[in-house]
């Protein structure tokens, strides 16, 4: 679904990504992990065209990114704990997104029902709690039946019930053949979701492959312990 080759990006003098080669496989959930400052958010921004690489090539669904916007029609993006306009309601923001899209298809708001958002969807976003805003954020990201779903810390601020609902939805999307790329600091959250792991550190992909292979090669039983071993920089057997 996603392939990057030799992607480099610096902000001013600070090099964030150097020579990043990655592959994200279709129809699977990939966990994007790495220490703070590893370039995870920058990587996501490059995929979305929010920032452009200094060098290298990014291919999404067979299309090389060249600055034209059409490929984003198939991407759903949930930014990290976003603060959206305080006086607009979730429904108005959703209507705005609908109006920006060329197809004008009716949005899928089943997730709003699953979250039991009720009239919170009609109230100004500024009056809602962080967790409620985060639920609306998730509804917006999944409203247009995207083939590629990019979630940046999606469960941050969600209560266990809402987190459960969102994870069920992610698994349902995978079952429907969608590709999911997800970052989270709460690795146990990713345990039941992640098929693959993409580990970034120092601006490169230090490890990528199946989560099960990572557990085997690190000799650890859980994703959290396996990633901790990667973070600690201890030697790991090459991915199968």
């Amino acid at each position, binding site marked *: 679904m996603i392939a990057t080759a030799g992607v480099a990006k610096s*902000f001013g003098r600070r090099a964030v990504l150097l020579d990043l080669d990655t592959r994200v496989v279709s129809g699977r959930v990939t966990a994007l992990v790495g220490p703070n400052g590893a370039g995870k958010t920058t990587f996501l*921004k490059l995929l*979305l*065209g*929010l*920032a*452009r690489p200094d060098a290298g090539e990014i291919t999404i669904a067979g299309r090389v990114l060249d600055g*034209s*916007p*059409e*490929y*984003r*029609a198939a*991407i759903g*993006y949930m*930014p990290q704990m*976003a*603060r*959206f*306009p*305080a*006086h*607009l309601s979730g429904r*108005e*923001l959703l*209507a*705005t*997104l609908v*109006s*920006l*899209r*060329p197809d004008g298809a009716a949005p899928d708001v089943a997730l709003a029902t699953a979250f039991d958002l009720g009239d919170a969807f009609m109230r*100004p976003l500024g009056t809602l709690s962080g967790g409620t805003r985060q639920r609306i954020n998730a509804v*917006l990201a999944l409203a247009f039946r995207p083939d590629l779903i990019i979630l940046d810390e999606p469960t941050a601020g969600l209560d266990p019930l809402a987190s459960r609902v969102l994870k069920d939805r992610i698994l349902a999307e995978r079952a429907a053949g969608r590709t999911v790329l997800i970052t989270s600091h709460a690795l146990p959250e990713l345990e039941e979701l992640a098929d693959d792991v993409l580990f970034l550190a120092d601006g490169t992909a230090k490890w990528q492959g199946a989560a099960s292979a990572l557990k085997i090669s690190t000799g650890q039983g859980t994703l959290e312990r396996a990633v901790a071993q990667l973070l600690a920089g201890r030697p790991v057997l090459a991915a199968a």
Partner: protein
Amino acid sequence: MKVAFQLLRPAAREALRGRWLIGLAVALAVTGELLIRFGGGGATTVISLLDVALIVTPLAAVVVGTMQVHNAREVTELFLAQPIARGRLFTGLYLGTALPLAAALTLGLLAPFAWHGLLATPVAGALWALGGVTCTLALIGTALAFVIALRADDRVRALGIALAGWLACAVLWDGIVLLVALMLGTRAVDTGLLIALAFNPIDVARVLLLLGTDGAALFGYTGAVVQHTLGTTTGHLVLLTALLLWLALPLGFAARTFHRKDF
């Protein structure tokens, strides 16, 4: 253009529900009401209001513009992640900020004259000119604010630069120009003064308005020079062109910055 108007509606809604744009319009209307009550609604009232408008409009525009760019940062990223081109998004975000502001300021300024029935009196022409120039200054100030805020990622720094720019144009520039003119003596004033004037959009707007209100005479020698040199059709056209350049150049620069920016 469709996208631009799609963004205008939610932006205007957000601005109106924020209430302080309405507060600004009401404050201007109250000021106008007081000036009419004490000044009688003639040419002097219009000139007093002109001074208020020339100070308040750019200030409101640079503050609203820089705050808006930074407040809307996250929703801008969400919009950028949609399948639309950046250029259209820029137009939408700019118009969504500039038009509600320009409308609030112009309505606030002209409302008292409207309800006193002064929009059909001899001062009407000057009033409409005041409305038009206020609108243009609001669009210019917002464009400059977009340039500053898109290039300065820190919101306090962006606001600081915007306020310093406003202070320079609204207050310092005239003082410096006057000082230089005094030092150079009277011979250099004519052309030098007029060139210096073109570098300050507030001055361009002021002269343009004074030429339309017989107010130039109130400004003594400088006013006379300006009236003599620019009080012609050509002069008006030059001033209008200067004002439109002050809109087009920053707007083009802001659009280019937005197009190339890494969010």
